[in-house]
């Protein structure tokens, strides 16, 4: 399968040791660039995603906003968040940000996931959920600093944006990227996207009066494979709760990679311990014991 060659696993969940496939192949790190300053909130990306992935529709309710629903869902992986931000001078800035999986270099979901191979990070940076391995424990949900994975009560598994790994594996761009009418979504190598993003931020600072324009590529999760250009990078929270400093709970890193195997081993030691006791000290018998054999010593 061609895609197996292009999508080389870099890290898989549920594994403490080395990951299969690491360094087996040259692979370009891919990246999605979202320029919030040219996003028009048209939701083409939302539709393209639902359509490409053939996800079922769900009823929604009007909620005093243009936003389709409050949060992404298991059948709605990417959502434009609309925010009316009041500037210091009283004018309104209507902010629109496409919210979806950030495809972290250091993915919290993958750290949290106990299931073997349910979450795979490919060498190209895509973090993908393999539902056939998913056990639906939802630890990924808590491990994600961006609140992205969503549980499907029907299949009892968790879903999120795959960055269209099927398309990317066949040499196509993700569906949302292709649809985006204004080109505020771009897709390419991480290097190119970072370059373009920084150029755009420069342009915003120099020609359009956005002094604090900048690029959002949080290093606290090792950088992401989805990066944003923001009018004001000093305050990402205003864009519908983009965390300024996303972190993975310590328990997932420490527990998962260290204590879990160690303590697991201890549990095994419990078994070995009682065995050793039986062998060395023997059972304790109700007294008096019937002497079956002559004790030779001890």
């Amino acid at each position, binding site marked *: 399968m061609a895609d197996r060659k292009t999508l080389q696993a870099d890290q898989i969940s549920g594994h403490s040791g080395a990951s299969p496939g690491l360094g087996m192949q040259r692979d370009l790190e891919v990246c999605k660039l979202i320029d919030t300053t040219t996003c028009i909130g048209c939701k083409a990306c939302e539709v393209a995603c639902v359509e490409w992935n053939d996800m079922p529709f769900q009823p929604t309710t009007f909620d005093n906003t243009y936003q389709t629903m409050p949060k992404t869902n298991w059948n709605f992986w990417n959502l434009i968040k609309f925010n009316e931000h009041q500037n210091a001078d009283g004018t309104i800035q209507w902010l629109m940000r496409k919210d979806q999986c950030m495809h972290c270099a250091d993915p919290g979901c993958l750290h949290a996931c106990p299931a073997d191979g349910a979450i795979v990070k490919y060498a190209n940076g895509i973090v993908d959920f393999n539902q056939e391995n998913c056990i639906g424990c939802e630890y990924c*949900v*808590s491990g994600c600093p961006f609140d992205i994975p969503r549980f499907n009560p029907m299949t*009892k598994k968790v879903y999120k944006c795959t960055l269209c790994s099927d398309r990317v594996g066949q040499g196509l761009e993700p569906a949302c990227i292709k649809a985006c009418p204004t080109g505020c979504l771009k897709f390419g190598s991480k290097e190119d996207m970072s370059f373009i993003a920084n150029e755009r931020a420069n342009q915003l600072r120099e020609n359009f009066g956005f002094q604090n324009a900048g690029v959002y590529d949080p290093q606290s999760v090792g950088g992401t494979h989805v990066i944003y250009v923001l009018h004001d990078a000093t305050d990402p929270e205003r864009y519908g709760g983009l965390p300024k400093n996303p972190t993975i709970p310590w328990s*997932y890193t420490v527990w998962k990679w260290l204590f879990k195997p160690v303590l697991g081993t201890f*549990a095994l030691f*419990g078994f070995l311990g009682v065995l050793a*006791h039986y062998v060395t*000290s023997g*059972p304790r018998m109700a007294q008096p014991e*019937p002497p079956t054999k002559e004790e030779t010593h001890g």
Partner: protein
Amino acid sequence: MASGAIESFDNKARREFESLGRTRVYRGELLRHPVYTRVLHWTVALFFFLALFTGFGIYLPWLFRWFTPFFGGGPLSRQMHPWFGLGFVFFFGLQVLNWLAPMLWTAADTKWMRNVHKIVSNEEKMDPPETGFFNAGQKVQFWEIVGGCIVFIITGAILWGGAKYFGGTAVAVSYVLHDISALIMLGGIFIHIYQSTFGEPGTFQAMIRGAVSEAWAWTFHPAWYKQVTGRDPVQACEEARRKMEGRR
């Protein structure tokens, strides 16, 4: 007041279950556990193992994935695990009510604990004479399970509700505590099973038939033996030894 209500509930339960089952006590044997206790014990054990095996599938799927088909696959294991856990905690709760009095810690237990190395190493063939219905080791395990259940209930609820209701940090912390608690309990269970089967032969039937031999009783729970028979355990043991040697 409350303790009175618990007592009457327990008594009623014991009576009811006695009419459902039967405990045969042969000569030279003592009644150890009535039907109610045994049913509770094995119900607890059943739920414990269901929760344990489904939990294994969540804890280390790469090692224990082969358990999960018994429960309909990983996601269903995950779905059922909290229900099994609830069953475990519920029935263990009844057991707590049932056993609350004999499980209370006494000065004798402290003494027993000081001597524990001698018992483990089999240096002391018989438990200290003050050892009652339960020895201190059993009480430690009992209270560990009580503590474990409290941890399970709290962290389990958080994990069940998920990050949606409790936030990612709470879930992340609960996840660790839940696992640690399970590991400790698992360690205890190894000892429990070992002690009740190979470690101290004659124990297992206490939970099967409900009866133990008098010898077993004076060896491991001398104070309880004295309490039910009125005889001195050491004397009884010596008597038996003499009888046995005489026969030879």
